[in-house]
């Protein structure tokens, strides 16, 4: 039996097709991105090796750093909103009737295409006919803001639909983790006289700490590489006020035809994402997992 199950030809037949796609379309390209970052290249003609010029330009490019700042703001915003999702999930996972239906309703926006979400929210934010400004005018605000055209507001105006899109995803994860906590643990605490607040803070949340860590990584890394809604709703505008790293990179490549510089940004984005993931895991690492 072992012989049949360790035949190298069969193993290769079963793994190589998928492995080939993974290497050819994900791993080789990230190496190429780093390499193209060393080139002066407009995407069509020949590449000219210029060493670290693109990378040093990146370090000094204020537009890149303002887009990186926006990406990190989104990461901060997304991470802070995890607290709200956690609170909602703790409530839902208590004895709430209809919790299952509610968490499914919360999930719906996450299943929709970014293009549809972006177009819909552009209509919601429409200066005169959108529901938001209609609502504001009906409560007496005579000149409601132009949400997507105002450089001071645009970033947060886009953060809202991003939160709207992903809220249900995180609530779903927390809810599933909380439902996995053995009922007997909660019960015995209750018999010992613990309040609902104590049970949530001292028992439930510590028990799902691993899941919380994973969601922090997902929220931060997901924010740093975020692209879709921003590209579609404002394309980084007005005047760079909503530009993030991925949209800046995309613009440099496919509007500016500066593929060398865009590759350097793409490689930098990869490094940031991997370093941040490692850093969060390191910072939140506990010496030993809680055992009961």
């Amino acid at each position: 039996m072992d012989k049949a199950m360790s035949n190298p030809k069969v193993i290769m037949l079963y793994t190589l097709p998928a492995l080939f796609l993974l290497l050819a379309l994900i791993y080789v390209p990230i190496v190429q991105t780093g390499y193209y970052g060393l080139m002066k290249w407009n995407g069509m003609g020949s590449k000219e090796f210029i060493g670290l010029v693109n990378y040093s330009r990146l370090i000094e490019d204020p537009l890149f750093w303002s887009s990186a700042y926006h990406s990190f703001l989104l990461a901060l915003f997304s991470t802070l909103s995890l607290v709200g999702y956690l609170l909602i999930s703790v409530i839902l996972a208590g004895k709430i009737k209809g919790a299952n239906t509610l968490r499914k309703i919360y999930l719906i926006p996450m299943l929709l295409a970014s293009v549809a979400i972006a177009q819909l929210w552009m209509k919601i934010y429409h200066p005169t006919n959108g529901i938001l400004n209609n609502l504001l005018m009906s409560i007496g605000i005579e000149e409601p803001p132009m949400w997507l055209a105002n450089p001071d507001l645009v970033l947060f105006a886009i953060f809202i639909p991003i939160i709207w899109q992903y809220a249900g995803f995180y609530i779903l994860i927390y809810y599933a983790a909380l439902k996995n906590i053995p009922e007997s643990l909660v019960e015995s605490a209750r018999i010992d006289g613990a309040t609902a607040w104590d049970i949530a803070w001292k028992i439930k949340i510590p028990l799902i700490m691993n899941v919380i860590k994973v969601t922090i990584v997902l929220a931060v890394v997901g924010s740093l590489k975020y692209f879709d809604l921003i590209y579609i709703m404002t394309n980084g505008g007005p005047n760079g006020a909503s530009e993030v790293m991925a949209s800046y990179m995309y613009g440099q490549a496919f509007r500016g035809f500066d593929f060398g510089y865009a590759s350097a940004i793409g490689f930098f984005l990869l490094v940031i994402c991997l370093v941040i993931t490692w850093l969060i895991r390191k910072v939140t690492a506990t010496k030993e997992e809680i055992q009961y």
Partner: protein
Amino acid sequence: MRNELLEEEKLDSAGPVQKDKMPAQKPVKSTSSGIGYKIGLGFIYVVLGIVAVFQIFPLIWLFLFSLKDNQEVFELSPFAIPTDPKWENYVKVWTEGNISQYFLNSVVYTASSVILTVLLASMVTFAITRMKWKLNGLVLGLFMVGLMIPIHSTLIPLFSTFSSIGLIDHPLSIILTYTAFNLPITIMILFGFYQVLPREVEEAAIMDGASIHRIFFQVTLPMTAPVMATAAIINMIYNWNEFVFVNTFISSENFKTLTVGIQNFIGQYSTDWGAIGATLMISILPILLAFLFLSNRIVEGISAGSVKG
């Protein structure tokens, strides 16, 4: 058997504590039932309800304005129910533009990639969990790290490679990219199930002298059908909604998918709200229908595909 396996998988995914399976207990009725408790509970329902309305209302509003003409949109309250629903908005966008072509392309790309991804991922997961070789941990690790790589870091080389081998503006560039980028999450979803799937049936088949391929196709694949369905629906949602790859690799109208197609299409109709609404409704309808009938599977797939990372 199926439910037991899924249950095990869930338990497995959430850390050490959940391993000791507790006997099911009846929830003890809360002793506090005073007026304060009831007000508190009422408040909680109000908050949860507001969140639900916030999540769902934009979609209801979308449906409402997809049935209006511009006169209604611009002159009446945006909350007004259309008195004379303009279903012709849907007929118009479906017949006038290329929406039907985009829709068909989305179906073809999504279906081909889903089949290819689930099959290839099943083969890899089978090899990793069932066969004996030294590098299986490394291969699994390569796929799992693939989950963390931002697509923007691969976009320029992919664009350049596809250009040089003639696959730019070709459906194959999309199908292959979707497959590659969905393999990691699909393997992650399948892996948990394969790990807890009893091996007795497969071992018995080997004893009977069945070949590996026969075991894989006639024993393992049928047994993993439920988790393949879960993985397929998650893949379907991702592929259907994908935007960046199609936007970058495809330029012909004939090959565009709904997401990119409607983005351009809406540009032409920028002032016709009804047409835009109808277009958006058409694009999200398949997902909403899938959700209506398969919500449990979707919920299960999303949790299995995220927490273990």
